[in-house]
């Protein structure tokens, strides 16, 4: 039985068999730290520069150079550790991870091995209706390798090109415990991890540019079984959705192997997003022996506990803290708070709108539906959204205090997207103030009745359902400005009078 063939279509009964198993997943995430310069030298970390222009003797691995650690890289790694409740080691040790690859000019990567910077901690994710904590094994600092440009699929090409601009860019590797039980949980974990990194502003979270990369260790076992199954490692997943899909695929594949009496091989798989399958990369039978040893060119990294505490005290407010604050201070549901804390700037935007409008729940509804609706359609960040919180707050206040209806509010909102004026000016300039005085409403009612003699006659003859039609006509005629209850009264009176 081959352990690596692509899975075939699900057959009836497969679901029932699948239910006997659970998938066990641990994730390794590499996050590029947002420093200006590399981790051990002064070269720029800027993405997209001309190849091999951001290199120096240190990151080219030339002889006779010494690495000097970037203070901000350490700070960012410590911030991340503190934000996820990890223990920050007073002493951590850099180590050499030895392997040969053309994009690794020194023949080793400076990483951390048996004494990482941070251990423990966790990230809370959604699971079922509640929360579940995914534990973290460690967070350590390391340098990135360069970039190999392979002549993929090109027959006859016998060379690979190497760009070392990325060589020495600072990374943290965040290793989770095998606490994840599905692709969906993995997806949520990644979303929340990325959110934390971006709130801390230590990583730009850009997966296309490789600022966030994820590998997954996946195994399956019968539910209730304590021992783990043999794991396969999946690499090359370039989006969180692909991580989710790859885990679902791999779970299915492994269950099939076990169900048919086979054994899962310990191997590395590459996710092929186009085909939707994971393909064998290399067998781990002769597992890599990286011959780690302490990096003799760097001293142990000894952190002063007072410095660590200072970093802690400067941590920005984190997503879960803002979420709790919004539900507590504004009384909005947890669901709303979660949507509104997607990014730090959206949370700030919401807070301003909520305060200014005086109606936090209405503000939340408007941002979640109207604002996010436009932003999703246009692909805008909240910073790019044309209506700033002061104007939106004023608009919502007008609706909350019933100066205008929600329906008129939407018209004004549409105008505000392309115009600089505030809602009050727009309402006045466009005659959008509600019609709620008796005289105007009666006049409107008379007009509608005169224009619709047939339906009016039906209502008078007792056909109550047609009344709604007349109300609709009045609303239409007034472009939604007629007071919805008072226009009904006015129509009744006029119909009676007629």
């Amino acid at each position, binding site marked *: 039985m081959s352990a690596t063939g692509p899975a075939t279509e699900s057959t009836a009964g497969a679901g029932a068999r699948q239910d006997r198993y659970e998938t066990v997943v641990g994730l390794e995430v590499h996050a590029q730290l947002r420093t200006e310069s590399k981790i051990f*030298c002064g*070269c*720029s970390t800027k993405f997209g520069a001309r190849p*091999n222009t951001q290199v120096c003797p240190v990151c080219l691995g030339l002889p006779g150079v010494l690495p*000097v*650690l970037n203070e901000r890289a350490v700070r960012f790694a410590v911030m991340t550790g503190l934000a996820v409740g990890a223990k920050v080691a007073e*002493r951590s040790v850099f180590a050499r991870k030895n392997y040969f*690859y053309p994009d690794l000019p020194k023949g080793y990567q400076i990483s951390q091995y048996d004494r990482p910077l941070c251990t423990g901690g966790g990230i809370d994710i959604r699971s079922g209706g509640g929360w579940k904590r995914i534990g973290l094994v460690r967070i350590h600092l390391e340098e990135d390798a360069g970039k*190999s440009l392979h002549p993929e699929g090109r027959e006859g090409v016998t060379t690979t090109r190497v760009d070392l601009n990325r060589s020495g860019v600072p990374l943290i590797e965040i290793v989770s415990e095998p606490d994840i039980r599905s692709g969906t949980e993995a997806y949520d974990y990644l979303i929340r991890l990325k959110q934390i990194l971006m709130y801390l502003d230590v990583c730009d979270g850009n997966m296309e540019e490789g600022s966030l990369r994820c590998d997954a260790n996946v195994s399956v076992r019968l539910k209730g079984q304590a021992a783990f199954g043999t794991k396969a490692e999946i690499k090359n997943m370039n989006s969180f959705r692909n991580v989710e899909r790859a885990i679902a695929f791999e779970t299915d594949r492994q269950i099939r192997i076990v169900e048919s009496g086979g054994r899962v091989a310990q191997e590395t798989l590459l996710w092929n997003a186009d085909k939707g399958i994971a393909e064998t990369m290399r067998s781990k039978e002769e597992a890599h022996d990286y011959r780690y040893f302490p990096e003799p060119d760097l001293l142990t990294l000894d952190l002063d506990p007072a410095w660590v505490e200072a970093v802690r005290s400067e941590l920005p407010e984190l997503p879960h803290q803002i979420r709790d604050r919004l539900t507590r201070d504004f009384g909005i549901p947890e669901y709303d708070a979660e949507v509104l804390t997607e990014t730090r700037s959206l949370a700030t935007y919401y807070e301003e709108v909520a305060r200014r409008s005086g109606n936090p729940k209405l503000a939340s509804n408007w941002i979640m539906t109207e604002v996010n609706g436009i932003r999703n359609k246009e692909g805008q960040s909240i910073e790019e959204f044309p209506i700033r919180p002061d104007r939106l707050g004023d608009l919502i206040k007008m609706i909350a205090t019933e100066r205008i209806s929600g329906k008129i509010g939407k018209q004004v909102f549409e105008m505000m997207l392309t115009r600089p004026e505030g809602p009050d000016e727009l309402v006045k300039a466009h005659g959008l103030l509600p019609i709620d005085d008796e005289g105007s409403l009666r006049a409107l009612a008379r007009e509608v009745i005169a224009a619709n003699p047939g339906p009016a006659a039906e209502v008078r003859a007792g056909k109550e359902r047609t009344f709604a039609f007349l109300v609709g006509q009045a609303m239409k005629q007034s472009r939604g400005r007629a007071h919805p209850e008072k226009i009904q009264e006015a129509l009744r009176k006029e119909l009676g009078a007629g």
Partner: protein
Amino acid sequence: MPIDAKVVHDVAALSRLQVDPSEEARLVKELASILSYVEQLQALDVSGIEPTSQVGSGSKPPLREDRVKPSDVRDEALAQAPDRDGDYFRVPRVV
């Protein structure tokens, strides 16, 4: 750790070294002799002693301020490389 031909092979493979079969026996012997010499250290009682990863541990490591120091050594580096392709280093195909 007993040194045999397999160990010599594995270490050579990891180090990308080509070992001539005629050298194998000699290398097994020499490696074993070197390691047994180093193994004398095992006799020391080091329990409770912090491993000396680096000489100078305990002193503050020098940290750099995060500032870009441009270094355009591209042309020089590429000129010294065995092979290049425009702005890139060129190596034998690896995938």
